[in-house]
């Protein structure tokens, strides 16, 4: 870190706090922050002002339906996470958002059995099973340089129904980080509408609401909280569909 570096980025502090830096510039600035104590101090000082801005907004009451639909999802997911939970139907949701859920024991055993039958271990894409109804479990390639113990699989339940991506051996991302799922059709990569985090054991689940019809590949990258509109790094997970 040189004084020149600091001078080059010093004025970015305000724009960064206000969300006015484009994605790539924000990432470059974040990298600069790691090595520049002066900018970090300035950031924390000015953060007080930026954090006060939402306080200037006129208060409006959110509609009760917002809380109702939110809590329906949350309570259903809390029940699914509970080991003693009985199976329950999926909750009604306003948004086509991904839904995280823990691995149901019977499904976990079924998937594990499929892995053994298919003999698919580690890197590479293998079709493990294909049910009569179009259900498939696809293994994924996980970048071993990033996650040496990583593994993932995609459960496809028919072409147009939500698909489920299950991962393990990943790292809990630091504050502000999230895993984002993408779909690739030909040369076009789009957000799959699924962000997820992993637990302390490195495992996590993401649902791809639109399924994988016409999708060539499902990808996962690490992005800032809230996700990105396009991948900002090479995929750490790939599943050929």
């Amino acid at each position, binding site marked *: 870190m040189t004084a020149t570096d600091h001078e080059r980025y010093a004025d970015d502090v305000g*724009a960064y706090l206000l969300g*006015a830096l484009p994605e790539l510039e924000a990432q470059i600035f974040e990298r600069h922050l790691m090595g520049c104590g002066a900018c970090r101090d300035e950031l924390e000082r000015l953060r007080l002002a930026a954090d006060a801005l939402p306080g200037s907004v006129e*208060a409006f009451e959110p509609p009760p339906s917002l809380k109702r639909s939110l809590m329906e999802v*949350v309570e259903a997911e809390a029940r699914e996470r509970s080991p003693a939970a009985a199976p329950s139907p999926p909750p009604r949701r306003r948004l086509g958002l991904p839904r995280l859920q823990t691995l149901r024991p019977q499904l976990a055993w079924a998937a594990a059995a499929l892995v053994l039958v298919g003999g698919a271990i580690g890197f590479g894409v293998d079709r493990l099973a294909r049910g009569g109804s179009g259900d498939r479990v696809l293994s994924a390639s996980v970048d071993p340089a990033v996650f040496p113990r990583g593994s993932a699989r995609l459960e496809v339940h028919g072409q147009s129904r939500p698909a489920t991506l299950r991962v393990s051996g990943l790292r809990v991302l630091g504050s502000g980080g999230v895993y984002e799922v993408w779909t690739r059709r030909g040369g076009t990569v789009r957000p799959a509408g699924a962000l997820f985090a992993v637990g302390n054991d490195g495992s996590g689940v993401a649902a791809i609401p639109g399924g994988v019809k016409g999708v060539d590949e499902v990808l996962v990258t690490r992005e800032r909280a809230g996700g990105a*509109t396009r991948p900002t790094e090479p995929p750490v997970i790939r599943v050929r569909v």
Partner: protein
Amino acid sequence: LIGPKDIHRLADEELMELVAAGDAGAFEVVYDRHGGAAFSLAYRMVGNRTVAEDISQEAFLSIWRSRVRYQRERGSVRSWVLGIVHHRGIDALRRNLVHDRRRASAEGIEERLEAPQRTDLEVARRDEAQTVRAAIGELPDQQGKVIQLAYFGGFTHTQIAEMLEMPIGTVKGRMRLGLEKLRRTLNEEVAL
């Protein structure tokens, strides 16, 4: 064990520990405390009730699903929640989800859903809002403008530079100076 009544007495940071353990009741209390501010911020940014609801819901679901990520040393739960809402609001604006980019102003909101003044806390927050608004109002015109265009309008520094016909460096400088002045003004208010 913490009963349903006790849970309302917990501090936000303590609630987040319960949320991290998958406690939906604790999450509901967090929503009750900050859902209004989240919705209001989203509404202020996008000027559209339906999109504001979607942004709020996405933000709170991401909080529920990635709840291990809250770190108390990084600031208050409220700031953290509103930071996530702000990020999602910017994302919605930049993805052109809001076709009508009219910014909600005091006069421009057709569907008023004003929150009632229910508690001392709400009154205190209303006072705080007036204080922050006054502090923004004290900023030199161009500094206030670039801050509002960036924070509430979701515009990048490049877009603002084009809009205001000024160099990017000037825009960034005014953002920084504006925040610095805002910080000083708010600190003076607290000291009084």
